[in-house]
């Protein structure tokens, strides 16, 4: 071969290899016929990583287990997920990419911002049913957000549960007072207005509202205000971990006896453990059964069986449970839609979702649930005692 031929051959070979390797992810991702693709853009890294990793593992493991059982309605499932880093522009881009390449009928996102950004496109496409870790009240609306559902109660619903608990905790006529401490984000502000209204309805005085930056560092000034306001309960919402422990510690240093309360994302054991000694007596609402609950139930046992075969034990977190639950809900939607001999389109899946009523999740929730409102308004109040988190109320259905 002359020099020019050899060079051209090598050049075109390199170009071909380059083009082929660009196609590699595409090739491995082409779904075989009959497969149902489930797309996801979970926040595996970033500020929500503590939850995102568990959510991703829970959903992924459920899909793997289900495929081992023969799939759903005879069809295998394929999980296509990519980390969004909890950034809306990333998760929107991943959504568009996966929808373009794989056409999944079901998708798991990463935040309220993502859900709202893709809502117009989801409505226009009419072929995707979406969910995610956001429990924002706006999104539990079958009319305005028809193709979105959430695997738990809205943040407003969670605050309602806490306020009901506060109201019932006092025997006499005067209700205990409450202070709200929340972050200046959509996550933080979402339930506050309805929470204040509910407190007023129950006759609970709201003595103080404290807004902080999401990752607030120095809270001494805020604690001064709390100390003067003397609330009996302090409800924290909109935080990942910080600054709740620092608030609790400074409140104890200042001699306050107020009890702290948290919502779903503050109540996983990994977060509570990091509070250390100040966490004792902390209350919170959690919709799911904890993995270490002493009451044995079929689904939680299954989760333990499947999850404990994987490294790092993510199965012990409530985020894994949530991911698993999302998988189970997806299964219900698919079987109900295909069982009625309908295609997996948006309107059909919406109807199937809303038909889920009195469904026994096998132990994730303590009562049968319904998804008519696109949310699951059920939860239980838990109390932190030493190194365990124990139930402190019955399973409450809100609304």
């Amino acid at each position, binding site marked *: 071969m002359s020099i020019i031929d050899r060079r051209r051959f090598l050049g075109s070979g390199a170009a071909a290899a380059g083009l082929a390797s660009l196609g590699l992810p595409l090739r491995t991702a082409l779904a075989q016929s009959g497969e149902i693709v489930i797309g996801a853009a979970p926040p595996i*890294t*970033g*500020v929500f*990583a*503590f939850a995102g990793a568990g959510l991703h593992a829970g959903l992924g493991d459920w899909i793997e287990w289900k495929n081992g059982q023969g799939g759903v309605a005879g069809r295998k499932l394929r999980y296509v997920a990519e980390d969004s880093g909890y950034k809306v522009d990333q998760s929107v881009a991943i959504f568009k990419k996966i929808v373009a390449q794989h056409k999944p009928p079901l998708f798991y996102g990463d935040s309220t911002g993502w859900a709202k950004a893709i809502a117009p496109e989801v409505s226009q496409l009419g072929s995707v049913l979406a969910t995610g870790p956001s429990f924002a009240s706006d999104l539990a609306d079958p009319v305005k957000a028809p193709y979105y559902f959430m695997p738990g109660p809205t943040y407003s619903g969670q605050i309602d549960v806490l306020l009901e608990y506060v109201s019932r905790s006092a025997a006499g006529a005067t209700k205990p007072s409450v202070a709200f401490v929340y972050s*200046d984000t959509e996550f933080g502000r979402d339930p506050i207005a309805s929470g204040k209204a509910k407190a007023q309805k129950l006759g609970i005085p709201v003595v103080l509202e*404290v*807004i*902080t*930056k999401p*990752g*607030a*560092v*120095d809270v*001494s*000034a*805020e*604690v*001064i*205000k709390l*100390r*003067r306001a003397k609330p009996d309960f302090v409800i924290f919402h909109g935080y*990942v*971990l*910080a*600054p709740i*422990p*620092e608030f609790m*510690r*400074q409140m104890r*240093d*200042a*001699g306050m006896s107020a009890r702290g309360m948290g919502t779903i994302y503050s109540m996983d054991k990994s977060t509570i453990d*990091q509070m*250390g000694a100040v966490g004792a007596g902390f209350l919170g609402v959690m919709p799911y059964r904890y993995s270490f609950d002493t009451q044995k139930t079929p689904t939680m046992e299954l989760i333990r069986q499947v999850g404990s075969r994987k490294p790092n034990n993510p199965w012990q977190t409530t985020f894994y449970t949530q991911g698993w639950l999302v998988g189970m809900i997806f299964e219900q939607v698919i079987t109900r839609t295909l069982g009625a001999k309908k295609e997996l389109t948006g309107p059909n899946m919406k109807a199937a979702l809303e038909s889920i009523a009195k469904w026994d999740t096998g132990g994730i929730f303590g009562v049968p649930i319904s998804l008519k409102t696109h949310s699951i308004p059920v939860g239980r109040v838990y109390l932190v005692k030493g190194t365990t988190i124990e139930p402190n109320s019955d399973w409450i259905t809100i609304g």
Partner: protein
Amino acid sequence: MDWLLLAEFSLVGLLSGGVLALIALGFVLVYKGTRVINFAMGEFMMIGAYLFWTANVFLKLPWWAALALTLAGIAVLGAVVERFVLRPLAGQPVISIVMATIGLGAVLHGVAEAVWGGANLSLPQLLPRTPLTLGEILLPGQVLWSFALAVALIAGFTAYFHLSKGGVSMRAAASDPVTAYAMGIDVRRTQRLTWMFAGVTGAVAGIIVASMTSLSPTLGTVALGVLAVIILGGLDSIAGAIVAGLIVGLLESLTVAFIGGQARDLVPYLVVLVILMVRPYGLFGTRDIERL
């Protein structure tokens, strides 16, 4: 007007300003020594806190050994940064050096997230928590001790700069490198030392902040607030950094008291904007004389 409440907020604010002054000291050291704003100071703080966590919590070394190792590690990082990032860029326009430190910050942030993960970690309680009660006013223990620590460190640095030979030669090299060379001072060495000191200051501040809250790769965002401090005080004035740190701490506390937490980060910047209209080089900064 509840004077007692105002006094309490003011005192707590001034004390919190101690840590801000410490971080500002790190910025000012770098600026005085090399005429660069180190936008990666927040990441230095974060890496320092992570190194301490690794030594103290992960390897279970006693705190003084962990601190020594952390400071040594950060000093090495500072020297490496100065040699391989800043020195090749000497003489480049301001925007290049600003962007270089921003890029450096991104690299450090990514490395921290890759090595230690994005989750929140806790440092043990390093500062005593018992509060000081002055009648109705309660001063949290951690705030008091962090202020005391900051004062001690700043006093130590100031003494070093004015009384020791090394410190005086650093000041000489900063104010006039050419003459300093002529006098036999190794200007490159002082610049390296400047970065190492700044790194050490940042690391200590980072450990203090992390022990008061929690440790995550986003710890560095505290340093953004300190930019307001150094601009207010003047980029090349240590006294300015201290005064401005206290003022900004006070302002933040009073903002929380009377407006609310959402404006807390904003008010110092607004004040800075106003002050810059009147004194374009900050309260104590030296006026730049431009030569054509």
